């Protein structure tokens, strides 16, 4: 368990943010932590969406998967860019 800084961009917003996540966070939790800086602030909520999903290099990540599991598979450096978008 460790704090880990990422760059999180909510697709549709104009700016990515510095977001502090935990290596034990699931990607569903990471999506929430990224979305809070955009949805309801500069982007209107989307009642038709079924939550959010996280993407790395364009590939969607399983929501229940944890960041430390991803780190075991592939190098993830501090300030790695993750996209978050509405799940349709």
């Amino acid at each position, binding site marked *: 368990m460790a704090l880990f800084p990422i760059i999180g*961009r909510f697709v549709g917003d*104009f700016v990515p*943010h510095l977001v502090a996540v935990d290596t034990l966070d699931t990607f569903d939790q990471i999506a929430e932590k990224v979305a809070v800086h955009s949805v309801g602030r500069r982007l209107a909520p989307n009642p038709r969406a079924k939550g959010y999903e996280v993407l790395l290099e364009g590939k969607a990540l399983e929501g229940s998967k944890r960041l430390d599991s991803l780190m075991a598979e592939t190098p993830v450096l501090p300030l790695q860019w993750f996209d978050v978008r509405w799940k349709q």
Partner: protein
Amino acid sequence: MALLNRDDWYDIARDVDWTLSYVDRDEAFPEEWVGAKDIPLEAWDEWDEPFRVSYRDYVMVQREKEANVSAIREAMVRAKIYKNLDGGHKASSQLHMGTTCMVEHMAVTMQSRFCRFAPTGRWRSLGAFGMMDETRHTQLDMRFSHDLLNEEPRFDWCQKAFHTNEWGIIAVRNFFDDIMLNSDCVEAALATSLTVEHGFTNIQFVALASDAMEAGDINFSNLLSSIQTDEARHAQLGFPTLDVIIKHDPKRAQQILDVAFWRAFRLFQTLTGTAMDYYTPVAKRRMSFKEFMLEWIVKHHERILRDYGLEKPWYWNTFETALEHGHHALHIGTWFWRPTLFWKPNAGVSREERKWLNEKYPSWEESWGVLWDQIIENVNSGKMEKTLPETLPALCNVTQLPLGSAIDRFNLKQHQVIHNGRVYQFDSEVSKWIFELEPERYAGHLNVVDRFIAGQIQPMDLGGGLNWMGLTPDVMGDDAFGYRWAADYSANRVAAE
């Protein structure tokens, strides 16, 4: 006895070069500061400037300029004209003073380097006038700001800003540290004199002066115009330098100009783009930022490139997209992170202002209006906490500006480099290209996000950040008009007309 004509003695007076006998030339003129690289010494004999100013002429003209500026200043201060100016325009002058005064002072150091290390005596002589010009500009800014301290504590940032860690100031300081204080004479002449002073200062000192005059700020407008007359003269030393470099190393000339043009453009989007298209009262705007850029900067830069046989920068398409969008991104960003500013930004999106923005920028509504709609709804429903940030925007490791601030939300994508095991992020493929040209030049500088992660900002929250930036409650940014503009939309959430 009749005096000689200037042209009879001018060349002798300025060609103060001589053969060194007590020290090697390389020791007296280290390559790190000269920057001539493999250009033979005699090539610099062709360096010539068109202004041909003597010290006598210089003093006479400058004395007259000073008298004019002083007369208007005294009259305007007595008339207490500042009190009645529009709040949006006041933000422009505070932003200008905080971000520009110490750049003028840095330019004194650059010009003094020309005086000492430039590769020809002619250039070294001309640098002396540039040095006095820049000293004058620093003093003019300080005097203007000092006059207004009793009216507005934000003018204290004219002197203070560059001694703080305010994020925008870090971006400005980083750029000018790079091209003025750490560049050799040749690079500084092409990047600063030719690109920034001869090109971009037009937008800060001509366009902004014009808008200031329209807004009734005669004192500020007059000060800017007076400064610009000096810039137009001493910026000329870029051309003879380019003449020499083009003959011997055109590839280097192209690269220096392409890097400087992008970095200067990004900075002036921040400083002048927001001021022209959002802070200046809409009825007083004469041209949009984009129109002015196209008319005064782009045409001019294209002509220089064409005249010297150089190519347009490879990133021209990206530049054109950035010209359409970048300053809108910087504006919504600075307004949203307004507690991190030392001026009070005008949101500039009332119905009337929005109509103007849509006329000037046809894609504005889709790219930016939608984001403002959510902000407006939050203001009108009293959710002010949702109109404020809870974290930092990600920042570019070259421009120090937010990722996403070069383009719009539809074109935003990642530009990343991993260098020595560290991730570097960039606001565009252009900034990434700049980094990859000379990674060691940029890799060591920490942007605000890097400093936050390194633990330099404590406590690690917004309050800690504001304290670290030196922002006190008396100057901290807030909406210039107390959010009254949002009432325009209180009956209808969707604001677009």
